[in-house]
Every structure is written in C-alpha cells, then in structure tokens.
C-alpha cells in the first residue's frame, strides 16, 4: 500500500487533514455559520424568502425591548427557572437517600429515571390527559376529598405555567438524579466507613462527603437547567402551543420567524437569547473558579 510506505511525518499530515476535514466542515456549517448569519439577519428586515432585504440597524432589538408583546414572555421563563431549583433539590434528595442502603433500590432508581427516556410529544400528551378537566389530576383530588382545588389547570392563565413547569420537573428530574447518583457513588465505600468509625451521622456525611464530591456536577447541571429554563420549548409548544399566557421566548421566536415571516426580528430575538445563555454560563464559570 502506498500509504504504508510514506514517512510518519507525511502520514501525520495526511491523517490530520483527512480525519479533520469532514468534522470541521460540519462544525462550521451547522454550529458557527448559523450564529454568524443570525447576527447578520438580526440587523435586517428580511422576511426569510424574498431576494431583497433592507438593513435596519438596531430597529429589531428596539422592538424586542420596547414592545411589551415581546419582552413579557421572559416572565414565563421565571416559572421554569424556579422549577429548575425544585428539580435539582428533588434530584439531590433522592440521589442521596438512594446512595445509602434502601430496599428495592433498583426499582426506585429505574422508576425515577424512566421519564427522562420518554419522547417529548408522549410526555406532552400524557400531561394533557393528566391536567384536562375531569382528567387524572381532578379525579385524584376528588378521591382525596380535595375537589375544591380542582380548576382549569391549562385554561387559567394564572396557573397554566405552574402546571407546565410541573410537567417539566416530572420530565427532567430523573436525569439530574441519575447524574448525581453516579457522582455520589464514585466516592469510595471506605470513606463512609471511616466516617462511621469517627462517629459521623448521615447529616455529617451528606454535608462533608456528598456535597463536596458532587458540587461541581451540581453546578454544571444548574447551568444546563437555567439555559434550559430560558429556552423552554417542547412541553409548552406541544401541550398548549403557547396559548393562555404560556408563550415562551423560543415559541415566540419560532412563530415570528415561520408563521409571521419576520426572520430579521426572529434572529434578533435569538441573538438576545444566545447572549443571555452565554452570560449565564460565563458568570457561573467565574463563580466556580473563584471558589477553588
């Protein structure tokens, strides 16, 4: 073979080029080029299909921050933001108790994790069924004698985002849980045994062994969770299409781009979103570096 007779130096050059070419082209075309184009579009009034468009400067950005129709949707993110913390708290609690001796451990582990394997559409439908009038939730409340609490879970604009954020916790908690559990179990058994001998109780173990060992991974998941909260899309889109006050920023962006053909404005919205996510990530990195 010709290749075999080449010097290692030439082989090296060839293999670097041959093995990098496709991945780099893909990375550039589908990860970086969209970002570059998006910045460009955000300063135009392009509708997304015609050959002509005009440069409009910062007009699109001004629209986002001055027209309440656009920036009020950020309030909806707050529900998902709060939900992220509830989700992390629950995940941490269950990961901790399941890292100690528990009966039917594998069953509980499997059940808690299972929702994170499910299809977003299936979950959306499952919760439409769960929240609909006389659906699962109302029936359970009735059964418990709490029928006075029943209401239009997905109809009342004051409660709809709580319902949707609840479905979102149901969906994502198991994922955080399994990650935390993995991190906790990477601490050797001997560490716990040694602390037992020193007379540490479960709380001490949680505070001084578990928390330090998973701090980093909790931080990482919190970041992912916060970015996820800001870019919430699947569940509200499938369940309500953004109606009754459940519109999120991403649903709105998609609608503005594809339904109302305002690609320039939609791009500006996406740029704003990207900025927020990047800032959150950088802040978090700075904070965690400072602590070390």
């Amino acid at each position: 073979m010709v290749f075999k007779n080449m010097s290692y130096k030439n082989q090296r050059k060839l293999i670097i080029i041959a093995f990098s070419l496709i991945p780099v082209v893909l990375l550039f075309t589908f990860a970086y080029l969209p970002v570059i184009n998006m910045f460009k579009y955000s300063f135009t009034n392009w509708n997304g299909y015609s050959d002509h468009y005009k440069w409009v400067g910062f007009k699109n950005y001004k629209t986002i921050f001055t027209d309440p129709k656009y920036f009020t949707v950020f309030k909806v993110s707050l529900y998902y933001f709060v939900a992220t913390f509830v989700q992390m708290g629950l995940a941490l609690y269950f990961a901790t108790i399941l890292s100690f001796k528990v009966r039917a451990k594998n069953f509980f582990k499997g059940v808690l994790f299972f929702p994170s394997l499910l299809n977003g559409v299936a979950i959306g439908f499952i919760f439409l069924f769960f929240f609909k009038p006389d659906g699962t939730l109302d029936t359970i409340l009735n059964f418990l004698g709490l029928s006075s609490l029943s209401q239009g879970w997905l109809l009342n604009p004051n409660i709809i985002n709580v319902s949707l954020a609840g479905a979102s916790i149901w969906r994502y908690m198991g994922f955080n849980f399994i990650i935390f559990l993995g991190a906790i179990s990477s601490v050797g058994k001997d560490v716990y045994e040694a602390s037992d001998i020193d007379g540490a109780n479960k709380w001490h173990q949680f505070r001084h062994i578990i928390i330090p060992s998973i701090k980093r991974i909790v931080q990482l998941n919190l970041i992912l969770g916060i970015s996820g909260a800001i870019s919430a899309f699947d569940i509200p889109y499938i369940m309500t299409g953004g109606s009754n006050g459940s519109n999120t920023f991403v649903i709105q962006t998609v609608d503005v781009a594809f339904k109302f053909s305002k690609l320039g404005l939609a791009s500006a919205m996406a740029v704003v979103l990207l900025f927020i996510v990047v800032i959150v990530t950088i802040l978090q990195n700075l904070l965690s570096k400072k602590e070390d």
Partner: protein
Amino acid sequence: MYKLKYTAASIFKYLSLIIAAFVVLIPIVVVLFASLKTGQEYANSSPLQPPTDWFNFANYKKAFIDGKMLLGFANTIFIVIVSIVGATLIGSMIAFVLSRFKFRGSKLLMGAFLLATLIPSVTTQVATFKIIDFLHLVDTRFAPILLYLGTDIIAVYIFLQFLDSISESLDESAMLDGASYFTIFFRIILPLLAPAIVTVIIVKGVNIYNDFYTPFLYMPSQELQVVSTALFKFKGPYGSQWEVISAAIIISIIPITIAFVSLQKYIYNGFSQGSVK
C-alpha cells in the same frame, strides 16, 4: 431514643420514595388504562378505573394503522442508524486527531469544538433552517441526519475522554512494528473504543428517537414522519378520542421501555458519562 429517630427517618424515606414512584407512574398508568378501553367505556369511567378487558387492542390497531406508525418507526430507525454510524466515525476520527497529534491550530480546533457546546441549538434554529434550505435539503431525511452530526458534539467528548485513558505507548509499539497511522486507528484504537461507542449509541439513540423539533421543522411531508411527529399528528383529528391517542402514546413508549429494561446498566452508565463534559 436513637432508635425512634431512626425509625421515623426510615418511614419518611420510604414514604417519600413511594410517593415519588406514584407521581412518576400514575400519569403513565392511566394512559395505559385509557388505551385499553372502548370509546364508550372511556366516556363512562373515571381515568383511574382499570379497563374491563385487558386484551382490547382495538385502539392500538387503529392508532398503528391510521397513524402510519410503521412508517414512523422505519424512518426513525433509518435516521438513528445513519446518524449513529456517522457520529461514531466522525467523532472518533476527530477525537483521535485532537488527542494524539499536536500541530499548529490544534488548540484552536479543540477550542472550537468545546465552544460549540455553549450554543444552544434551539437559539440558532432560524438561521440553521436557511442553511438547510440553501442546500436544498428541507424535507429530506438528510436534514436531521446532518444536524445530528454537525451540532450535537457530545460524541466527540465521549471519545476524547475515553482516548485519554488509552495509553499512547500502544500506538508507539505498533509503530515499531511498522503499522501506519490508519492501521493504528482502525485496528487498535477503534476496537478499544468499543465501550465509548456503546455510550454514544445509547445517548445519541435516545436523543434522536425522542427529538421532536428537528423532524417537525425540517421534514413536514407525511412520508417522512418519524415516531415523534407521527404521534404529534394525533393531536388534531383525534382531539377527543383519548383512547386512540393513549394507544399511540403507549406504542411510542414501548420500544424505549424494552430498551431500558434490557440495557439498564449501560443506559445509566451512558447517561452519566455522556453528561460529564
């Protein structure tokens, strides 16, 4: 006293676990119940009531045929397989280059792959759509495949991590035997990456199977529907026929449940490794 406190904690522990299990399972179990009821039975019974006939599969038949679920599964399988094979090859190649060779720009290249994970793909979708459109790939199976290969860089990380644990002295001893870099990659590195490949298959497989947004946006034709978009179509015409929608939901859940039960260990490992970047 100690004992009492211990028992109380234990009761609380099991109680919380049992409640959590109920919270997870009830929403799914009621859908299973509904899927086995006849239309009339569904209308006249509470959601928590089990079906009278556990073998009434009429709704499943209807959902499977009317929803063209078979087509959905075929398209999904095709996209999953091509994307996984592609991601494995591309990911392991670039990871090999990045981990084994230091050259001008190698740091920059590494940084470019790292930075890309910071961009949430949902934010750039509007511009990505225009690129796929420019390539005339909208409404083809290659739109999602290319996007899964180009924007989901998780495979590269999994391979990079794993390559760190494969000693370079292996490569060197093969070079002493006169093996070319290609031989080293295909005969030594790739087989050793097998556990990492399993992780990639699982993480990517689950993600792609469950992705709704990409196929929904890029493949509107019915012939190209995947499992998730096929399921989404039940929303309109079957709006009130919850027993049929329920059957469709269960159909979409079955494959992933079987995979989970039979591959539990790998799935747990895959997900924990796949997330630790």
